[in-house]
C-alpha cells in the first residue's frame, strides 16, 4: 500500500514538473523565468548548506567552491564527452523546446548532474576529513581556503578556459549544451528538500542535530561525531555539485569569479536569514534574496542598478543586525507550516508509525 502510494506520488510529481517545464518558459516573461530558475538553483545551494551549517552546526563558508567543482566538471563532461558519449546533442548546444528535445538532453543532463555531484562529494570528503576533526572555526577557514584553491586551479586550467571562463570547446565548435530545463532544476529542489526533511525528522537526523547542540555530550551518547560531520559535509557538497552542473547547463557559460567567496557568503546569508536548521526558512530566503535584486534591477531600470550597488552593503548590515537582535534568523529554527494539507499528512504518518510501534 505504502509502496503504491509512493509510486503514485513520484509519478505525479514527475508529471507536474514535466508539464511546468514546457508551460512556464512559454508563459512567463524571460526575466521572471530566469528568476524562477536561479531561485531553484539557490534553493538547492541554501538547503544543502543548511545540512552542514544548520543541522550539524559546522561552519562551512566555501559552499560556492563545491558548486564550482560541479559546474566545471559537468560542463567539461558534456563538452569533451560530446562525441563519444552524447553525439546526438547539437553542437551549438541549443535544443528545441519540445518533448523530443527534452529527451535528447535528458541522458546528458542526468550524467552531468551525477558526475558533478559525485566529484564535488569526493572533494568534500577529502577536504572535510582532516578539518572536521578540528574545532569549528578552523573549518570555516579551510572551506574558504578550499574555494580559493579551486579558483586558482580553474584559472590555470586552459582546457576550461582559464580566467576567461568556459563556454565550450571553441576549436571543435562545441558549446555547453543548454539542457538544464525547469524539470531538472526543480526535480533536484524536490529531492534536496525531501532529503533534508527526512533527515530532520528522524532518529538518524537527531545525531546530526546533537552534534550541533553539544558535541561532547553527543560523543558520550555514542554518536560518532566525526563521521556525522563528514557525512553532512559530503551530502552538502554533493548537492552543491549538482547545483553547479545545473547552473553550468542553464547559463551555458561558467566564470571562475562566479563562485568566489562573495557568492559563498550569499548562501551563508540565505541560511542564516532563513534560520539555521529551518528548511522552509532556507527556501524562502533563497527565493527572496535571488528574486529581489533581479526583479528590482529589471523593473526599476536605472534606480534598480543603483539599488544593486547598495545591495551588498545592505546584506552585510542585515547580517550584523540580525545576529545582534535575532540570531535565530527571521523565520527562526522551526518550520513554516504550508497549510493543512501537509499537516494532515504529517499527523497521519506519525499515527501510522505509532500504530506500528504497538
Amino acid at each position: 500500500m505504502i509502496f503504491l502510494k509512493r509510486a503514485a506520488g513520484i509519478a505525479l510529481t514527475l508529471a507536474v514538473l514535466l508539464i511546468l517545464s514546457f508551460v512556464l518558459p512559454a508563459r512567463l516573461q524571460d526575466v521572471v523565468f530566469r528568476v524562477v530558475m536561479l531561485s531553484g538553483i539557490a534553493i538547492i545551494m541554501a538547503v544543502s548548506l543548511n545540512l552542514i551549517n544548520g543541522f550539524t552546526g559546522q561552519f562551512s563558508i566555501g559552499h560556492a567552491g563545491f558548486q564550482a567543482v560541479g559546474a566545471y566538471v559537468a560542463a567539461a563532461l558534456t563538452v569533451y564527452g560530446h562525441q563519444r558519449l552524447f553525439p546526438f546533442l547539437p553542437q551549438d548546444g541549443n535544443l528545441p523546446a519540445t518533448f523530443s528535445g527534452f529527451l535528447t538532453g535528458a541522458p546528458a543532463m542526468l550524467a552531468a548532474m551525477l558526475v558533478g555531484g559525485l566529484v564535488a562529494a569526493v572533494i568534500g570528503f577529502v577536504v572535510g576529513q582532516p578539518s572536521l576533526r578540528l574545532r569549528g572555526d578552523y573549518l570555516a577557514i579551510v572551506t574558504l581556503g578550499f574555494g580559493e584553491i579551486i579558483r586558482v586551479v580553474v584559472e590555470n586550467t586552459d582546457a576550461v578556459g582559464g580566467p576567461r571562463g568556459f563556454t565550450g570547446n571553441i576549436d571543435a565548435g562545441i558549446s555547453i549544451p543548454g539542457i538544464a530545463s525547469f524539470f531538472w532544476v526543480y526535480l533536484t529542489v524536490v529531492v534536496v528538500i525531501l532529503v533534508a526533511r527526512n533527515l530532520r525528522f528522524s532518529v538518524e537526523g537527531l545525531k546530526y542535530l546533537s552534534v550541533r547542540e553539544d558535541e561532547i555530550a553527543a560523543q558520550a551518547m555514542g554518536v560518532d561525531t566525526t563521521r556525522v560531520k563528514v557525512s553532512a559535509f559530503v551530502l552538502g557538497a554533493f548537492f552543491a555539485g549538482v547545483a553547479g552542473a545545473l547552473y553550468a547547463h542553464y547559463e551555458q557559460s561558467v566564470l571562475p569569479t562566479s563562485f568566489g567567496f562573495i557568492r559563498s557568503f550569499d548562501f551563508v546569508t540565505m541560511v542564516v536569514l532563513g534560520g539555521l536548521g529551518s528548511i522552509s526558512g532556507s527556501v524562502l530566503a533563497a527565493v527572496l534574496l535571488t528574486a529581489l535584486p533581479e526583479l528590482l534591477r529589471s523593473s526599476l531600470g536605472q534606480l534598480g542598478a543603483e539599488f544593486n550597488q547598495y545591495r551588498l552593503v545592505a546584506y552585510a548590515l542585515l547580517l550584523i543586525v540580525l545576529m545582534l537582535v535575532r540570531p535565530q534568523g527571521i523565520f527562526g529554527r522551526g518550520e513554516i507550516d504550508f497549510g493543512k494539507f501537509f499537516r494532515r499528512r504529517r499527523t497521519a504518518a506519525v499515527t501510522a508509525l505509532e500504530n506500528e510501534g504497538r
Partner: protein
Amino acid sequence: MDQILQQLINGVQLGSIYALIALGYTMVYGVLRLINFAHGDVFMVGAFVGFYSAKALKVAEQPTFVGALATLLPVLLIAMAACSVLGLCIERLAYRPLRRAPRLTALITAIGVSLFLVNGCQLLFGADPKFFPQVTPTGEAATIRMGNITISKDQMVMVVAAALLMAVLTYIVNYTRMGKAMRAVSFDADAAALMGINIDRVISFTFGLGAALAGAGGVLFAALTYAKILPIMGIQMGLKAFVAAVVGGIGSIPGAMLGGMLMGVAESLVKGSPSWGGFEPSRFADAVAFILLIIVLLLRPAGLLGRYAPEKV
C-alpha cells in the same frame, strides 16, 4: 642558489606584511577566541587612509633610505591611528554585545562586518584601483647589489619598519601593565576578571593594537610593493595572514611572526620556481597558503608554537 636566495629575500618582505596582519588575528583570538574576519579589511582601510593622507601630505620621492622611512612615518601614524579607532568601533558595536553568544553567531557577525567594510569602501572609493605615490628612491639608487642578489630599498624600508613595529609590540605585550593584563586574559579570562582586570578595556586595547598593526601593514604594502589599492585587497591578504597565524599557532605572538615569515618565504619560493616540463608551479602561488594550512592542521593542529587546549568537560 642565487635564485633561491633572492626569493628568500623577497619572501621575507612579503612575510613581514603577513606577520603584521597575523599578529592582530592571533591577539584577538587569544583574548576572545574569535576569528575576527574583518581584520583583513582593516588592513585594506589602512591602505586607503595611507593613500589619502600621503596625497594630503604631498609625499614625494626620497633620495635615501632613511629619508623614505622618515617620510612614511607620519602617513604610517595617521593610518595606524585611524585603524585603531576603526578596530575599537568594530569591537564595541558588533562584537561586545555578542560576548556570551554562541561562537557561530559571533563568526557570522564578523563576516558581516567584513562584507560591510568591503562593500562600504567600494561605494565610498569606487572600484578603480589607486596607486600610492613613489616614496623610495628610483633608478640607480633603488637597489643594493650583493653579488648576484639585489635588495631594493623598498624591501629594506618594509622589513625595517615591520621589525620596529614588532619590537614595540613585543615590548608592550611583555613589559607593560596592559600587556600583562592581555596575557592574563588570554590565559584565562574568567580568572583574570576575578583578579580585578577590566576585561572590556583589555579587549578594546587588543583590538586597537591589532588594528593599528594591520593599518601599518596596509600602508607599507601599498607604498612599497606598488600594489593596487582596492576595496577587495584585504580579503585575500587577510585570509593568508590568518593562515599564517594558524600555522604559527593561533594565540601565540611569536607564532604569528614565524608563521607570517614562513608563508611569505614559501609563497615566494613557489612564485620563483621554474617550470617542470609544461607544469608551472608559479601560477599556483596563491594556493600555497591553503595547502600549507591543510598540511599543518593534519600534522600539528595547534600550529608550530601553539598550545592545544581541548575543551573542558
